[in-house]
């Protein structure tokens, strides 16, 4: 549906050059919700604006619905933009006008008849559950209601694609959740492909099918949400995942862990959905010569399923620990050995290849 290939874009400021995009390639499939996450200045805004040609790449190509955008101008460009709805962080509505007027604007631009406009606006307002606010002025609405109007306006022309530019970033957590549910409905019930950018990992966690992580104008990691959340590779990705899924040992446990005089290892276990069919932790407890302390646990919804993280302190002889690790790996749970640096009180992950059996 959307194919951006090796797009680069540099902004020339007075004395410096800003590399907003560097060789970015993403492919959004029809019908999915694709999320791009990154801190501010990562290039997300520029990237999403390539899709409706509010920005043009210096090099690289952008294809939307099989159409190469680089040659589009005038009426053809307008026609394409009408197939792409866009929702903004600051809503960008005409505050002094009514809800009806705002939602009807894209239809007025298409020279639709008043009867048609009346009908379509009623439909989309019903969809976003704002039928009763039809004649209210936008300035009288709450942030969440304004964003619903924004979404209704974007849907008015029956687009195939919806672009969301930080659509929930100006909203409180509760409203954020209701807007996300609405976006999910837009995707499932209307079959609209959604490309969104956000700095809130929660948005990715709750509604996205696939995610790309951006840093300094590059896509550093990309894949299905379950995969990226389960085994984040890049440091920035881990930081983002940590904002919604706590996979750390609570600091208050540090002293308890340190007080253990016997031989032990810290292991982080992740279970995603029902990929693991046995009671791994219960079975670990029953293993001879092994003692299990749970020092951290977190259960979060993820993509309609559940991801649980446990941090275990396994106490026992080297051989018992080794075989316990083998058992965990065989069970299908994602395992990661951790180390606490007692000086800095930082936790470091030990990559699977570098685990020493005596550790």
């Amino acid at each position: 549906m959307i194919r951006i290939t090796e797009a680069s874009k540099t902004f020339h400021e007075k004395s410096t050059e800003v590399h907003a995009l560097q060789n970015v390639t993403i492919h959004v499939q029809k019908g999915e919700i694709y999320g791009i996450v990154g801190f501010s200045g990562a290039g997300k805004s520029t990237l999403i604006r390539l899709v409706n040609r509010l920005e043009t790449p210096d090099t690289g190509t952008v294809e939307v619905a099989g159409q190469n955008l680089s040659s589009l101008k005038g009426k053809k460009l307008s026609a394409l933009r009408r197939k792409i709805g866009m929702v903004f962080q600051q809503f960008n509505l005409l505050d002094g006008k009514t809800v009806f007027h705002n939602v009807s604007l894209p239809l007025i631009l298409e020279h639709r008849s008043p009867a048609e406009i009346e009908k379509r606006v009623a439909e989309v307002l019903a969809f976003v559950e704002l039928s009763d606010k039809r004649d209210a002025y936008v300035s009288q609405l709450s942030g969440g209601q304004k964003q619903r109007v924004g979404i209704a306006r974007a849907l008015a022309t029956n687009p195939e694609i919806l672009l969301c530019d930080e659509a929930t970033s100006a909203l409180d957590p509760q409203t954020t959740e209701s807007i996300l549910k609405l976006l999910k409905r837009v995707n499932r019930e209307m079959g609209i492909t959604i490309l969104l950018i956000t700095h809130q990992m929660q948005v990715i966690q709750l509604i996205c099918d696939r995610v790309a992580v951006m840093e300094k104008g590059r896509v550093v990691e990309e894949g299905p949400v379950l995969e990226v959340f389960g085994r984040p590779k890049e440091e920035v990705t881990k930081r983002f995942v940590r904002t919604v899924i706590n996979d750390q040992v609570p600091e208050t446990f540090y002293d308890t862990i340190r007080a253990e005089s016997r031989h032990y290892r810290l292991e982080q276990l992740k279970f995603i959905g029902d990929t693991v069919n046995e009671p791994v932790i219960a079975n670990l407890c029953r293993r001879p010569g092994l003692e299990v302390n749970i020092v951290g646990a977190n259960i979060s919804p993820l993509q309609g399923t559940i991801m649980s993280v446990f941090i275990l302190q396994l106490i026992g002889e080297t051989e018992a620990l080794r075989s316990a690790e083998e058992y965990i790996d065989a069970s299908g749970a994602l395992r990661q050995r951790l180390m606490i640096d007692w000086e800095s009180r930082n936790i470091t992950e030990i990559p699977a290849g570098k685990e020493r059996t005596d550790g």
Partner: protein
Amino acid sequence: MDEFLNSKIFGIKWSRLLNSCGQTLYMVGWGLLIGTVLGLILALILVLTRKGGVLQGRLPRVLYLVVNTYVNVIRSVPFVILLVTIMPLTRLIMGTTIGSTAALVPLVLYISPYLARLLENSLLECSPGILEAAQAMGANIWQIIRYFLMPETLGSMVLALTTGAIGLLGASAMAGYVGGGGVGDLTLTYGYEKMNTPLMILTVVILVAFVQLIQFLGGAISGKLRAHR
């Protein structure tokens, strides 16, 4: 009625006074109307072709520079000087350099760049986000102006025009130099030069009343337009 018109107030006939008021309204009215059209066109060019403007890159940058320079140059010439220096142009357009209608040429020439600056400021109040949303919807440039840029800034533009109208009123006082008449002319020729102090005070009161009226109307209309913001 004739009796009343021929009766005198502070040494001049009522008919003369009313005629002067009419001339002032004529000059300010038409001057504002034509000046607004021209000023708005200039303001739109400035706003749309400036750095980061909607048409930046689609129209040559020189257009912005030309309009911007034109506005600055005209704005730096005092009205009285403009009035006499452009007399040949006035004659070319109106066929004469005398009278209220002839005075319209320098008035419009003087006020339109001023209005352009004021309206430019108003138009710039439109948030870039609104314009971006308009573009994302596939609006062409005329649609952006008509459905987004203008409605969003109308209240502010009315206030700008109010300020412009008062400036125009001030300028029209000097139209007497080219026989344009008006209340200002009356003040200068009958009140000041003939040392008719009561008349001078009366005409000043009339000018003050004009300003108050314009300001009141402008404020009321703008307030109505911004009622729901």
